[in-house]
């Protein structure tokens, strides 16, 4: 599954970053790399782009880009 399949509030651990060129480089630069954990904070109207939390960073990603990030679900986020 990819980051675009994660639901709002769901946590995922990145297994691979696909895509190529500028988009992939930007994802890697920002720390979206294998083993990193992300949480889907919220989505924009119409479900795109998505708002991702990665450690101390919060990022907006388009579904297109999120789909190139393979993840494994890492359980629901603890709300509080």
């Amino acid at each position: 599954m990819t980051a675009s399949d994660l639901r709002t509030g769901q946590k995922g651990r990145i297994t691979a970053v696909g895509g190529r060129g500028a988009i992939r480089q930007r994802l890697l630069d920002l720390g979206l790399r294998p083993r990193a954990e992300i949480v889907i904070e919220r989505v924009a109207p119409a479900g795109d782009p998505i708002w991702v939390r990665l450690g101390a960073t919060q990022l907006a990603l388009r579904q297109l880009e999120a789909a190139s990030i393979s993840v494994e679900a890492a359980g629901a986020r603890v709300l509080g």
Partner: protein
Amino acid sequence: MTAPAASSPATATAKAAERVRSLVRVGLAGNPNAGKSSVFNAMTGARQHVGNYPGVTVERRSGTYSSEGTRYELVDLPGTYSLSSYSPEERITEHELLQGELDVVVLVADSSNVSRSLVLLAQLLQIGARPVLCLNMSDEARRAGQRLDVPGLEAKLGIPVVETVGHRGIGVEDLKSAVARAVAGPARAERLLLDERLDRALRPVEAKLAAAGVAPDARAWVATRLLLGKEPSDFELPPGCVEEAAAQREAIETETGLDVALLVAESYHAFAERSLRDVLSAPVRPDARAVSDRIDSVLAHRVWGLPIFALVMYGIFSLTFTLGEAPMGWIEQGFEALAAAVSGLWAGGQDSPLRSLLVDGVIGGVGGVIVFLPNILLLFLGLALLEDTGYMARAAFLMDRVLSRFGLHGRSFIPMVTGFGCSIPGIMATRTLDDERDRLTTMLVLPLMSCGARLPIYLLLVPAFFPSAWRAPMLWLIYAVGVGLALVLALVLRKSLLRGEEAPFVMELPPYRVPTLRAVVRKMTERGWLYLRKAGTIILAISIVMWAITSYPKPDRYEVDADIAAGALVVVEEPVAGDDRLVTEEEVERRRSAEDLRTSIAGRIGVAIEPVLAPLGFDHRLATAMLGAFAAKEVFVAQLGIVHSMGETDEESVPLREALQRDYTPLTGFCLMLFLLVATPCMATIAVTRRESGSWKWALLQLGGLTAVAYVLTLVVNQIGRLFG
């Protein structure tokens, strides 16, 4: 250019030594949103703005400061996450660093997110820069529970590390002395070892570069770039390097089963993690952003986000217009007084070309631009607040879906909204877009966002042709047509001339911050000044040209005078209704002005192009007035008054509205607004597009393309409208 290859180590050292004596050049690098601009301002005191919106400092800015007898030049490099050279910002930064002319590079880091800045630091070290790490917004990080051993980090990295709070000027003196220490200190002796396996691949490539005389400082970096399969565009490569790098790449990828891009990225992140180990005793608490997150749960809400955003924009626009009204009146009165004073220099009623040039050309033309300054400043104030609080990034997040459908970017929204004030600052604001195609698309369609100068046209025409119940919807319709057309044309451009891969929309969403008054006011005045200078100088020149072509040549004799001489007209003291033959002296004067304009170059052009514009429902008088609109849109109103023998008029002129009602149908009125909305952006816009796009090609495409679209569209509307009566 052959930057690194040309400068041998010996001359580089000599050059550096010389600089210590005269001027030390310091680069300011860092991630977007790290507060780079505020550190720049605090160090130099220069006029510069602080942005919360990603990529706000794409321009190159520099300032100077003196410290302990040495002069420093500070160069603000664009905000980047890496030096991977995919975006213009990254390319500019890489280029500046490879030039080898920066003695020290200050890396401004967001203290709450140090590790991401250390990724950039690894690259700075690799490229051969002499860095100083500036941990900015350290107060915020400390409040959020972060405990960082600064001397420990300094010892580990082997470079000066300083804590600052840029927008309050805290730690700036420490930073300046750290820069001085870095200049005086020894250069790094050993090369940075990031990853053993990568290093084995890099060494043979570096050896080839060394043999060709590439400066030692740049070798590791250039070799890494080659390994990634990217050839530096700045200089020529010695033969064999590309092949060697390709062979090494294949070997390492086969061996590890991973691609080089990932391996290199991982090596930078590993460097960051190593550097922070044992030094970062407590990270930022997970709930540090709780307040910001709570605000976002409302402002960036999936359902409420857009309506709230619409309200915010509406609020800014209505404040712009209501608060701007009074100062606009003062400016108008000021220019009227000035015009009267200048006119007074000539004896009563005397007709002098110089007087006419000064009063009608210069004062009238420049006054017409400056009168919009209050509106523009207020709009910029609103936008600066949105940027500096961090709301702009949320707006881009909310708007991206709609805009990306039309091939635009979430960030295109800001320049386009600015375009409602004036196209010129809007086009300048397209610099916040990373991708060149995004930028060009936004720039080219931007004049369709109906600017403030077109408003007087609508304010004159709408009440002239439509009953009061229809007025607001008509005004709304004309703005909506502009926006809709802009989106459609953007899509057409992205499918034709500007086809290509979409730029990544990976945008950081910084926490909300309370903007400082100083930063917001600085940003507003800086942009306001740009508007005045860019638009003012161009419009001054154009005003003079327009004055000349609307004033000359003069008619040999006036028909109205001939009529009076022949007895067809009789001059009377007071206007008499019901008898067309009785005219006042004022009426005679107005008819003379109308004749002046008719025989002038502009009038003749109007007559000449009438056949072309006739299918749109426009006569030669409208055509002549439109020439004025090309100079500056609002000039149309005054010109229309002159061609209708009303003298100079404004948008409130009742007689002009009555004349328009008499002479034209509501359909023509609508077509007129439509045509003026879409066709020929004003000359100043074309000039700015030329400058920002870097070529006349795009500026002329904008001019020709929009005019062609306007013609066809208006033709269709006029012809269909006529069918239905």
